[in-house]
């Protein structure tokens, strides 16, 4: 592994991308959403996990796009793919339990890893309607591990999300709505759940037993207290390991020269004024 870059050589998007890319293991089947998740996985593919198999929900299976797709429906997704088909295949593969890792984003998250991408405020009288779920709950429901990449603001790391779009470790059992552990609800379809949140402040993991989020590492330049203060819920910081490893120079090279030279998802670092 090449040497770590110094703080002035990378920006937060770089750090997120690299931290996220390290979550994937070689030979895994990975189901990715559009945007930063895509770049993170492709970075993993070009570094430590060359045999990962990439699935996009629009229907390309095990693709090797030579030029970064702007979304999962992009014509670029198909280049070098093992099979190109459609959504029924992609979601059936997921529900069949074949996916090791899902990469997703979100607007709000709670301490159980429940994620909201649907609306801000009361669903029946929303302050702001967002995009809606997309495949977020589906990929998350069936992956053995799920990684969320998020902007870290206190209004986003909340006690209760406005709407549970994507299931965390403790979820609501309908029709009653009582909170239960995900394992109880999913039965034999249970595969796992959110395993990491990579935010702009740190890397968070979950205790699979009680389903609570805890701080794993804080990003260079942040402190534990600062990260804690950026959460509305009481963040468990008892297991913190230290600083998030920064990007390596080689990772930065791959991101900016190979994967995203046109700064579609990851802006190049501008020297600070």
């Amino acid at each position, binding site marked *: 592994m090449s040497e770590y870059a110094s703080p002035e050589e990378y920006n937060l998007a770089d750090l997120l991308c690299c931290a996220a890319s390290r979550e994937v293991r070689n030979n895994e089947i990975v189901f990715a959403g559009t945007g930063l998740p895509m770049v993170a996985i492709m970075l993993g593919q070009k570094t430590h996990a060359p045999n990962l198999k990439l699935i996009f929900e629009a*229907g*390309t299976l095990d693709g090797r796009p030579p030029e970064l797709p702007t979304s999962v429906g992009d014509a670029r997704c198909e280049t070098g793919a093992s099979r190109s*088909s459609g959504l029924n295949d992609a979601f059936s593969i997921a529900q069949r339990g074949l996916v090791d890792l899902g990469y997703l984003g979100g607007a709000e998250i709670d301490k159980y890893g429940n994620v909201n991408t649907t609306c801000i405020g009361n669903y029946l009288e*929303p302050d702001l309607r967002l995009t809606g779920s997309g495949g977020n*709950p589906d990929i998350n429901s069936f992956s053995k591990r799920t990684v969320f990449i998020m902007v870290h603001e206190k209004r986003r790391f909340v006690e209760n999300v406005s709407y549970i779009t994507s299931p965390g470790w403790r979820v609501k059992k309908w029709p009653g709505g009582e909170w239960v552990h995900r394992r109880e609800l*999913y039965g034999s379809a249970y595969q796992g759940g959110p395993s990491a949140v990579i935010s702009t402040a740190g890397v968070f993991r979950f205790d699979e037993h009680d389903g609570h989020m805890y701080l794993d590492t804080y990003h260079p330049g942040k402190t534990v207290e600062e990260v804690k203060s950026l959460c509305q819920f009481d963040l468990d910081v008892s297991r913190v390991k230290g600083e998030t490893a920064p990007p390596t120079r080689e990772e930065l090279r791959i991101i900016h020269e190979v994967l995203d030279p046109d700064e579609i998802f990851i802006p190049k670092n501008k020297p600070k004024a």
Partner: protein
Amino acid sequence: MGNSKRITMQAAAELVKNGSSLTFSGFTIWRRPIAFVFELIRQKKTGIHLIEVNGGPQTEFLVGAGCVDVWESCWVGHELYGKYGANLSRKVGTKEIIVEDYSHAEMMFRFSAAASGAPYAVTQTSLGTDIHNPEYDMLGRAGRRDGKRVAKKKYIFAEDPFFDAGQVVLIPAVKVDVAVLCVQQVGEEGTVRVGGQYYSDPEACRAADVTIVVAEEIVPEEYLRRNADQNTIPSFEVDYIVECPYGAHPTGMFGRYDVDGAFLKDFYANTRTQEGFDAFAKEWVFGLDHIAYLEKLGWARMLKLRANTALNYSPRR
């Protein structure tokens, strides 16, 4: 063999009646029948019940123009060219539109069930989310669940009786009056060959009672039938065909042209207000036919989007 199914874009749009349920081909910002959607807007359709596996610019055009009454889907936006559906978002706020949320896989499976003639599908996706919150059954709240075109219930919870797999959710098949597909090639008799990912097109087609295919080109059936295993949809599932090159612009078409990101960005920026949308529609939809639209876009712009034959997309460098 067979009579031609060719009709004009205008006649095709006239097949969609006020109050019809409607769905489209494509995925977010790819292979959307935008030229057809523009014609619907020109014809001032109202009360459309839009049922989409996922939404995109086509949704935002129809919603902005006031054509849509109900939107059943899971996502709307313009990918990286516009982060959410601003027309829809505004009209949800003002309650001018009913939104019924399912998950993406649920929408897909609802179409698969319909395409297979099954009344409902069984899945374990999205358990524990607010998608299943009984309070959030918006068509139910609106008294629209007649058990005919709209299912009596949004979903039903059950336990798997065969393998004790745990909770399952039953989701009703969609009932769609008209599907409009935008594809690369269709034969005179209706055989469709989609290039690249076929998304949810085959299911959308068969789920609908009537299917209209808008194609970049109408080709001889015999050409497509030389390689039946490369075709996507059989002749008899297609009722009408329309030839309309660049009919998906500003969305992209595998092997033909890329997404026009600048157009979508501009559109999205204008949808932040109703006045903005109206002005945009006045400029790009009303008073133009498809050829005039292409003239207005101009050759330089369209040639830049042109896909390279070897790559199936327009390379950035």
